[in-house]
């Protein structure tokens, strides 16, 4: 089939697409390191090595060509996303387990690259948070950036009471869900050591790092604007309306958009083309639904962040969304001049 037109091909490859995604994560990671220390790099390394090993083994078992698939970069993207959604001081085996779930179960058992109906990194996140809720919510406390101590937590005996704390999102949710505390959003945000800035200490800066990388991906046409815009817009709108209605109970849009995994989700997770919607209108619906579910789970659910569960729920709806949002074909758009 190779001697058929077109004889010209754009020099594009899956590898280039994936490498661009990895590059776009770098600004966010840099800020992450600044606020939470170098442990995140170690997590990324653990996840990457695990992913490549798992990918090799699975490709060998499935009798697929190793070189094109190992070098396509997709396993690394999954690994990095898993690593970035774990607490940086989580024990090393948590990252290994997460990546194995993502690569072996969510990707290869469903048929490998391009076939997975669910976002592999989010499958891993959901599995881990259900199985190890406590480990998954131990984030390094503000100022706990000493590399040696962090490595002790990752690889050695964990005695962390003094140095861990919940994410701002988690802290807020816990406070608001405890009836005796009679907490209010402004009360919690104002007093708790985790907070102090908009999205929680450091979080909004990390979010801006991801935003920067994400915008670059849009400019590079790796992703389109639809999903990030609809996701952030809907999340912002839902939290705005709720906070206007009851400011004591619901945090505002700035908090929701800039905290936790919102920005990572908007530009790097919801935009996974394989498991997400592909039509322009479908992308808007998919991302809006995702944001709404995220907000609901964040506010009313039992888990610290809602993006992972929301992603899986929306992944299920993708075939239906895509089918019902097929764009009009040339000449079939109705209006003619």
């Amino acid at each position, binding site marked *: *089939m*190779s*001697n*058929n*037109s*077109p*004889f*010209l*091909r*754009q020099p*594009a*490859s*899956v590898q*280039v*697409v994936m490498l661009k995604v990895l590059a776009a994560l770098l600004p966010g990671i840099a800020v992450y390191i600044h606020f939470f220390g170098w442990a995140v790099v170690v997590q990324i390394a653990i996840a990457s090595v695990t992913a490549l090993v798992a990918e090799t083994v699975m490709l060998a078992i499935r009798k697929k*060509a190793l070189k*094109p*698939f190992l070098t*396509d970069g*997709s396993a690394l993207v999954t690994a990095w996303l898993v690593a970035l959604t774990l607490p940086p001081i989580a024990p090393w085996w948590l990252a290994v387990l997460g990546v194995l779930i993502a690569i072996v179960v969510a990707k290869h058992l469903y048929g*490998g*690259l*391009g*076939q997975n109906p669910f976002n592999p990194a989010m499958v891993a996140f959901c599995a881990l948070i259900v199985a190890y809720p406590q480990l998954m919510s131990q984030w390094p406390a503000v100022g706990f950036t000493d590399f040696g101590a962090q490595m002790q937590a990752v690889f050695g005996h964990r005695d962390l009471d003094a140095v861990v704390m919940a994410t701002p999102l988690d802290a807020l949710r816990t406070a608001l869900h405890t009836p005796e505390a009679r907490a209010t959003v402004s009360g919690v945000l104002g007093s708790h050591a985790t907070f102090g800035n908009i999205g929680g200490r450091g979080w909004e800066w990390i979010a801006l790092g991801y935003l920067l990388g994400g915008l670059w991906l849009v400019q590079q*046409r790796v992703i*389109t604007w639809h999903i990030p815009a609809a996701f952030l817009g809907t999340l912002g709108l839902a939290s705005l309306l709720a906070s206007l209605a009851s400011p004591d109970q619901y945090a505002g849009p700035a908090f929701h958009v800039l905290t936790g995994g919102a920005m990572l989700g908007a530009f790097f997770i919801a935009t996974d*083309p*394989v498991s*997400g919607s*592909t*039509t322009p209108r479908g992308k808007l619906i998919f991302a809006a639904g995702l944001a709404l579910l995220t907000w609901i789970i964040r506010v009313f659910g039992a888990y610290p962040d809602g993006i992972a569960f929301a992603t899986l729920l929306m992944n299920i709806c993708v075939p239906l969304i895509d089918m019902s949002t*097929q*764009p*009009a*074909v*040339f*000449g*079939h*758009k109705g209006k*003619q*001049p």
Partner: protein
Amino acid sequence: MRPLFGFTGGVKPASHKTESNQGGIVVAPLPPVLTVPLRQNAGLASRPLVQAGDRVLKGQAIAGPGGSISVAIHAPTSGTVRGIETHPIPHPSGLLAPCVVIEADGEDRWIERTPVDPYALPVEELRTRLRDAGVVGLGGAAFPSFVKTQHGPTQRIETLILNGAECEPFITCDDLLMRTQAGQILDGAAVLAHIAGAQRIVVGIEDNKPEAVAAMTAAAQRAGLLVEVVAVPTRYPAGGEKQLIRVLTGIEVPFGKLPPDYGVQCFNVATAYATARALLHGEPMISRLVTVTGNVERPGNFEVRIGTPIADLLKLAEPKADTDRNLMGGPMMGFALPTLDAPVIKATNCILAGSKAMFPAPGPEMPCIRCGSCARACPMDLQPFEMYWFSRAKILGKAQEYHLFDCIECGCCTYVCPSRIPLVDYFRFAKSEIRAREKENEAADAARQRYEFRLEREEREKQEKAAKLAAKAAETKAKLAQAGDADDKKALIAAAVARAQEQKAEEKPGVE
């Protein structure tokens, strides 16, 4: 200025026009033997009018139209007909087809030419003359032009669009023609507009051809014609008929409809030129401009007689040693010629020599990652990856639901796919598969009809027989009633039973 409408999708490959559009037009030498295929137009093949040994003059008809969608074919030079032989023709499958082979006598003597004043003749007459002059669309499809000047009762042609976009990379023959023959092109276009009843002419030229735009604009002013020359943005496939109509008028002609359903009709600039030659000069379509470019030392444009072996033409441009394939057409929609023995035909706009370095083999094919690049590049607003999925799985009905037949096979999707999936190959395959199945279904329908007819006939015959038997039985009964004798009765009953068994045996359905 006319507002332009643009179209979604499209791609911008490197244009590679300057290699071949810098020099002038070189007249290719007359070959000693010309091979003129009888089938050169879309529609039906032409019907030969000559036989071995006949002497023919340049421009003499050697084949007449073979049906209502067919045109005449002419001797490209004077000489002797060697015969009607099967010979390779330019086709991706290396097809052999009947060709009139003419040995040139070297005199190149014209038949008597009869120019006409097109505005003094009835349009029907002009159409016949276009047909008999062998004029077909020269943009590549080779559809008989006289047919395109007609329109049905519910159709109309108000605007005649002249396609000078030439959006395929490498090809510059229309560019050169517009630069050098702008006046003749517009004369021809005016005649086509007159025949079709169009009130205005709009010429669309990609804006990477400023010389052509200037020449055409100047010619339009000189002629004082109601012609608009429009530079359209350079983006492949702006020269696709549907895309150019869309860019210039905003009209989208969907699959299954024709431009005259929307008041427009589209001709290539070279077709307009051929029309002028045919009617205003009495010269039938016996040569054309061909770009020879790519992996050659001396790329350029050549005025070539139809029937010239492609190998001879290619030699004029001096192909480089590492040439590993030769395409007819451009790199986006052309095809690799299985043999250079095939002749230049009316549809030959470009011979493109290629090498491994020019067209590197794409990397290994990867699974589709649903990135949507193909959908964004598709000028027909299709979802190629969905059609690919269903074509590959041979769920052809679904592929059709995703508008498989709206695909114009422009190749943009394959061009951009990061997984290097040869998408358009799958679509060509799926379309031919569906067409084959439809044919099969038609055949099956016919067979079923025959079968039903037979059943009906057999049923009728059975009933007739039953009626006869009943009559016989009644007769027997009557006889029985009359016959008092018991033995007689027995014999009659035995005969009736035997008949009944006979009938049963016959009733067993026959399976063919």
